[in-house]
């Protein structure tokens, strides 16, 4: 469709109504003399409703509106990695260069650097037949990411007439097909349309996060979905940051959707310094950030999750495992609510639009482990934080999210209050992936992994039941064997579940170490009961030597030596 020009009829906050404008739904428009970016969200009679991604103060009725005839799209190609974008893929460093420390309006900035030259190495030759989604070459984008250049999924393909190698910008052709189609390193893709793939595959490989409570008890699969709901201050963002840091994904896309500016700054300052335990290189070299903080325009916040997931799908299509973190999907839902209110739509539950559930479902459905068009296997795993008002999980965003996601990590303000972090409540959380991933753990970690895991969980469950009794009669009234169980449960909680995000050693815990720790707890448990049978009293068991050392051994770089030394002491002291 060609460009069309109309004029502004009405302005109400982020909603602008235009008239005499030819438009289709979701066309991208330039609004007013300052060319503010906006998107068509409704057609009513001769009026066009546009949500504007920038502040509309000072804009007047009568100013022009230009419809570009294109949907909101992102630029995909080399130059994405390590970048930080606003909700509509404008690079924030570039915005700073153009407009200074504060974000001003009407700035156009391409998502990827159009001037930079990349060393393109072709993987096809003249005369080859190429099809949509196929890899035609590669660019070493960062030390850890090999950017695979694809035939855009919406290009039919054909026989290769010319192919070049060497340094090119993203807009220069690197190959030409017989029908004259030029293939470039970059292409555009509309954010609201999922990128195509061949088929979805079952989620049988875990996305390892280095977080004990997650990997052991509530794992997420590669291509899976998880939600972290919790009241403020319970550690949603820290957990999300931990996942972004330590997940064993090739690419991490982190969406800061309507959250704090300082939190994004933290990521920006920290990630270039942090070293990926697997590649030994800075984490920033595999990360793309989308930051639309709470005080940035609300319409761009609505768009930010689509921008993020489209970038994630793009890397998936190269055959990579991508982990996407969205913090927080509640802010996204609120943006929808705010815009829906401006459109004067009939509200559903708590003022949220009636389409809240379907939008959430559509978003999470874009996750998955797939066979890509190029025949590789790639995945997008999605972890969404949810910020329920008042920490009340019965509100619409949490409930509609839980209907879709397969893993639920419920954060608990009480645990956070006693500084038990991660404050994930093990009694309410669940993961539906434990069954499908059991084989993987048994094969790749240890055959008895699943038994140990089940045992530890049953101790925690038992503890919860006993705690109720303790609340009534005090712990002294319990039989000794049950008091030992409470002691073991405390070890599981303080030694295993509690993990220090800011401790250099404890921040990341490899599955192998998780197994060793879990195994050690089981050993201690068995000794305790043996000692009890041999006539030791609970008090004696509780005061066992080496206990403190054992509890702290996880913080040592050489945890194995520290742990076995402590176990040795305990064994001797218990006389088993």
């Amino acid at each position, binding site marked *: 469709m060609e460009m069309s020009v109309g004029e502004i009829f009405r302005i109400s*906050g982020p909603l602008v109504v235009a008239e005499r404008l030819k438009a289709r739904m979701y066309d991208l428009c330039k609004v007013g003399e300052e060319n503010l970016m906006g998107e068509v969200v409704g057609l009513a009679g001769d009026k066009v409703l546009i949500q504007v991604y920038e502040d509309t103060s000072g804009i007047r009725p009568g100013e022009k509106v230009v419809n570009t005839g294109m949907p909101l799209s992102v630029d995909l190609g080399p130059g994405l990695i390590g970048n930080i974008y606003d909700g509509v893929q404008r690079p924030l460093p570039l915005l700073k260069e153009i407009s200074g420390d*504060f974000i001003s309006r009407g700035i156009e900035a391409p998502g990827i650097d159009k001037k930079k030259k990349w060393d393109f190495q072709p993987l096809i030759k003249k005369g080859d037949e190429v099809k949509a989604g196929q890899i035609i070459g590669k660019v070493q984008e960062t030390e850890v990411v090999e950017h695979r250049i694809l035939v855009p999924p919406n290009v039919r393909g054909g026989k290769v007439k010319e192919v070049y190698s060497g340094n090119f910008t993203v807009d220069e052709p690197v190959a030409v097909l017989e029908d004259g189609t030029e293939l470039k390193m970059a292409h555009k893709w509309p954010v609201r349309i999922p990128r195509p793939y061949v088929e979805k595959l079952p989620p049988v490989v875990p996305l390892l996060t280095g977080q004990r409570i997650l990997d052991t008890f509530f794992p997420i699969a590669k291509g899976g979905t998880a939600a972290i709901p919790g009241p403020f201050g319970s550690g949603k963002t820290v957990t999300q940051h931990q996942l972004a840091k330590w997940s064993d994904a090739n690419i991490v896309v982190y969406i800061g959707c309507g959250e704090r500016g*300082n939190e994004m700054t933290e990521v920006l300052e920290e990630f270039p310094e942090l070293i990926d335990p697997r590649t030994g290189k800075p984490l920033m070299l595999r990360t793309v950030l989308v930051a639309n903080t709470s*005080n940035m325009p609300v319409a761009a916040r609505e768009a930010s999750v689509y921008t993020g997931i489209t970038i994630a799908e793009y890397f998936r299509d190269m055959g990579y495992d991508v982990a996407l973190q969205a913090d927080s999907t509640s802010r996204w839902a609120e943006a929808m609510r705010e815009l829906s209110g401006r459109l004067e739509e009939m509200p559903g539950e708590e003022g949220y639009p009636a389409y809240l559930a379907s939008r959430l479902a559509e978003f999470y459905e874009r996750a998955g482990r797939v066979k890509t068009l190029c025949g590789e296997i790639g995945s997008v795993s999605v972890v969404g934080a949810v910020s329920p008002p008042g*920490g009340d999980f019965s509100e619409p965003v949490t409930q509609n999210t839980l209907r879709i996601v397969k893993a639920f990590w419920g954060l608990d303000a009480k645990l956070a209050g006693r*500084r038990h972090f991660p404050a994930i409540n093990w009694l309410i959380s669940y993961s539906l992936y434990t069954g499908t991933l059991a084989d993987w753990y048994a094969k790749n970690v240890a055959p008895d992994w699943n038994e140990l895991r089940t045992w530890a969980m049953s101790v925690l469950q038992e503890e919860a039941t006993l705690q109720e009794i303790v609340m009534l*009669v005090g712990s002294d009234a319990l039989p000794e064997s049950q008091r030992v169980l409470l002691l073991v449960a405390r070890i599981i909680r303080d030694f295993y579940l509690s993990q220090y995000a800011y401790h250099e050693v404890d921040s990341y815990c490899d599955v192998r170490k998780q197994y060793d720790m879990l195994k050690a707890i089981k050993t201690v448990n068995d000794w305790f009961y043996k000692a009890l049978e041999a006539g030791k009293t609970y008090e004696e068991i509780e005061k066992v030597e080496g206990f403190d050392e054992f509890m702290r051994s996880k913080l040592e770089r050489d945890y194995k030596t520290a742990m076995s030394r402590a176990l040795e002491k305990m064994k001797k002291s218990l006389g088993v």
Partner: protein
Amino acid sequence: MEEYKTITQVAGPLIFVEKTKPVAYGELVNVVLPDGSTRKGQVLDTSKNIVVVQMFEGTRGIDKSCAVRFTGDIVKLSCSKDLLGRILSGSGEPIDGGPPIIPEERIPIIGSAINPYARKYPREFIQTGISAIDGMNTLVRGQKLPIFSGSGLPHNDIALQIARQAKVRGQAEEFAVVFAAMGITYEEAYQFMKEFERTGALERAVVFLNLAKDPAIERIITPRMALTAAEYLAYTYDYHVLVILTDMTNYCEALREISAAREEVPGRRGYPGYMYTDLATIYERAGRIRGRKGTITQFPILTMPADDITHPIPDLTGYITEGQIVLSRELHAKGIYPPINVLPSLSRLMKEGIGEGMTRDDHKQWNDQMYAAYAEGVDLRGLVAIVGEEALSERDRKFLKFADEFERRFVNQGKYEDRDIETTLDLGWELLAMLPERELTKIERKYIEKYHPAYRKKKAS
């Protein structure tokens, strides 16, 4: 300037004007009343047919014959270094009898978002001299840390104590204070003003006063005026600015009033669905910027209706600010000042502002241990209520004692008592020494040996 006498409707704080020239969204409006006085307003909705204006000083006395003047300008504050020492109304007019402010620059109060890429992460420890804050929920420069209070609790005393004592150690620079009052009583405002005058802080302060008797809608612009002044002082004159906003609850009430008058779909408890975004445009104006010296630290105060922390105002605030200081009626009733309940309190930025070279090397682990021990003690109180203290084990009794002493000796302090961080940490160690050493699981051996009173005594002897 063109005048229109085409008011067609007046609804609460809103007026509707027809048949105008194209009027900009957010434009400043003057309405001339029959008696010749003018009132200010701002455009909320504009179209070719009708313009909706929110009147900051209410609509009493406005009739359909009033002349409406669109200024062609958006709301701005006259900024100058001379703002320091001045008292202004909630809409930025001097009310201290002094001369008008001669602007060095007129700045739109709406403010632009700081580019996250331009921000610098806050890590400079601010010592407030209050143990429950410095030790447990440390404040850093550029943070926004609200006080969640309730009616009748001494939040003003705490805010004043912070304004009085706050300093960055080893640096001579002092804070400038921007104080914005929204709908507080004359008495409360008087307490602030008197204290500012007494300590000489007024010279370094800019005061915006919108009292309970003043127009409610004016409160919508008061915090933005204050933050515009703060930004000017911070980014043009390199001041470290401490902004106290009180009471944000009144601000939110005003927001709800306008939303109701516009017949918008209400969100929770009648507050508008965009309240989160709106509050964010206030709170997010705290921070530091790379390459600039000045900083803005925010201390918003809000009273939780019925002490309910899940009420939309504290709830949405907590999701935006970097933590919160929660006051407790129970502690207040016990006679403890400041009645800070550390368990629900939090400072999200403290981890980067504490530790070696900032506070002390043991601070992080000390903090975890203090929290865990106090939480356990508080939990046990519930148990004692049912089974009595005798039924507790010896270990549990120690924790119970710890919790009591923690409140009585650690949290409790004088209104003019300025404890430095070492005093706070050592006091904490004294309390931790009441517990069996094996229970200090969150602290590494080396710190126990360095700071635990038992080892210190050994060393001393």
